[in-house]
């Protein structure tokens, strides 16, 4: 597989009155051509900041990319200036945002908002752009495109607006699509529609996708690989099967345990105790230690490195160290792992 994007040791900080908030603390991952990488984690784990930083869309100041490389087809985006980034944004990498109610300009016609990128990047004439907008609206499933072009966002429902946002992102056939919780603000039925739409489009366009979410059901449905983020770091990364059926990090266990599944109705849902650490003063050692049932002394003293589980699967927990005692994952997770070993379940079946 050819690598489209490689992120190496990226650090993002925000300078606030209280001090430096280290929102992203050394993140490494890559995205291959045509694949979907899901980034999951709680609110505040740094997943949104990570992807906004890729496009240099974090507000600067107070935010800044402190160090690291973002190699997109070999070019380092972190070193590009605003002018150069403008040529990348929308054309090669584009973004779908979380809340369709606020991410469209309320005083600009929908057609014009989609056209903007086309006119800028593909040097289309207004008439050409209009034709393409109609096609795009058809593609994202908005009927009566000819009339819809001249309407304002408030005349669209939430789901329809999100389709418009998708159309804006797709306008110039980007190589990489970043979807920042694209279904979180929508009704469940609409969520499914938008997910289907995105899968559909990905098949047709063959663009790579980074999909941010905190909904594991969505992950199982759309992703090829999964990165789990906690407190500004990736704690576990692997294929969907790795993460769902052979999780290694206690945090991933917690996440999976808190997810309801169809074949375990009688069980109580598990909740991870406590709340994420304050990134103004990140704790010493493993940031998850304080909430970790399986925490060891070393977790409070040293940060765990990434341990290799398999060629596709890495996790940052001391439990994988040779000296660590053998620990049994919680019941719910164990059941899942066994289920996979028996081959009775597949990743496709994992839906809420």
């Amino acid at each position, binding site marked *: 597989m050819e690598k489209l994007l490689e992120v190496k040791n990226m650090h993002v900080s925000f300078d606030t009155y209280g001090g430096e908030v280290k929102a992203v603390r050394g993140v490494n991952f890559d995205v291959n051509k045509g694949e979907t990488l899901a980034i999951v984690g709680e609110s505040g784990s740094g997943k949104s900041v990570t992807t*906004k930083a890729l*496009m240099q*869309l974090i*507000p600067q100041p107070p935010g800044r990319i402190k160090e690291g490389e973002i190699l997109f087809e070999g070019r380092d985006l972190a070193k590009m200036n*605003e*002018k150069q980034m*403008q*040529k*990348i*944004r*929308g*054309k090669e990498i*584009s*973004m779908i*945002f979380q*809340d369709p109610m*606020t*991410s*469209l*300009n*309320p*005083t*600009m016609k929908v057609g014009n*908002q989609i056209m*903007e*990128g086309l006119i*800028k*990047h593909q040097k289309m004439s207004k008439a050409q752009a209009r034709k393409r907008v109609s096609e795009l609206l058809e593609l994202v499933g908005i009927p009566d495109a000819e009339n819809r072009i001249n309407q*304002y966002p*408030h*005349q669209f429902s939430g789901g329809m607006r999100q389709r418009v*946002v998708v159309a*804006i*992102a797709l*306008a110039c056939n980007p190589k990489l699509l970043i979807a920042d919780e694209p279904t979180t603000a929508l009704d469940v039925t609409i969520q499914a529609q938008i997910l289907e739409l995105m899968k559909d489009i990905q098949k047709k366009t063959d663009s790579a996708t980074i999909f941010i979410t905190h909904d594991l059901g969505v992950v199982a449905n759309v992703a090829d690989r999964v990165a789990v983020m906690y407190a500004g770091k990736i704690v576990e990364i692997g294929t969907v099967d790795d993460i769902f059926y052979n999780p290694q990090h206690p945090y991933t266990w917690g996440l999976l345990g808190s997810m309801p599944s169809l074949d375990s109705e009688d069980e109580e849902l598990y909740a991870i105790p406590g709340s994420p650490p304050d990134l103004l003063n990140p704790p010493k050692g493993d940031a998850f230690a304080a909430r970790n049932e399986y925490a060891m002394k070393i977790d409070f003293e040293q940060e765990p490195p990434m341990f290799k589980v398999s060629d596709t699967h890495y996790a940052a927990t001391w439990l994988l160290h040779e000296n660590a005692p053998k620990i049994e994952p919680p019941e719910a997770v164990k059941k899942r792992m066994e289920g996979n070993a028996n081959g009775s379940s597949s990743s496709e079946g994992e839906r809420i």
Partner: protein
Amino acid sequence: MTRYIIQRLVYMIITMFLIATLTFFLMKLLPGSPLASADKLSEEQQAVVLEKYGLNDPIPVQYYNYMVNLAQGDLGISFQFDNREVTTIIMDRIGPSMQLGIQAMVIGTILGMLLGLVSALYHNSPLDYTSTFLAVLGQSIPSFVFAGLLQFYIGVKLGWFPVALWEGWEYTVLPTVSLAIFPIAIAARFMRTEMLEVMGSDYIVTARAKGVNKFGVIIKHGLRNALIPLITVLGPLAIGLMTGTLVIENIFAVPGIGEQFVKAINVNDYPIIMGTTLLLAFMFIFIILVIDLLYGVIDPRIRLAEGE
């Protein structure tokens, strides 16, 4: 939309009616009559004068006559200027007042917007701090203090512009500047806040994510959305300017309605006081109405929601 306009017009008429009634009865409570300055008249002459102003009629009749005349745009006859109609006096003097007000409004809002825009775009820079500081000064320091400064330093000491009177465009400079400082300050502060808020909103990130350049983001996505709420301050600004002209016209001896009004207060010329008060009230209410309607026309969210 039509229903809304009609409803607003009805409210406007009720308010004007109440203000006219209130003004009429308050004036009746006041001491003083056209005879106050002419007590050497014989009784017959006094009777003639009272007759002329209709002051011999019972109050309800006077009230009825007053309201009927008012509906026809007749504001009565001045006490101090024999036989001159208040409507004519006001019409003769409204020109300079309007000119001052409009000049100050146009200059004030345009300069203010630019200042606020610069402030917002260079947020937290020395430029921002300076213009915010100047805006606070402009908003706080009363217009008559500025008028005094300008009159003394620019008019008397430097002699660049005439200190008083109204005989050409150069006479409008100092009063216009004194009046414009307040709208500059208010528009600048408002524009800054709005622009900062708009530039922090999600759709600006969307626009940037499309690869739109900085200028395009500011003008096409930022400015338009920031300007819509700016319309709401135009009303209070216009009212502030009318208040200001009353004073500024006096300081610069501009022959407008404000100067006339102050003279009338000093000689108890009630018909002129009532007439001017009603005119001011009418203009206030009218401006607020126009601005509310304008807001509906400019904001697509309101425009279309009403139309559907």
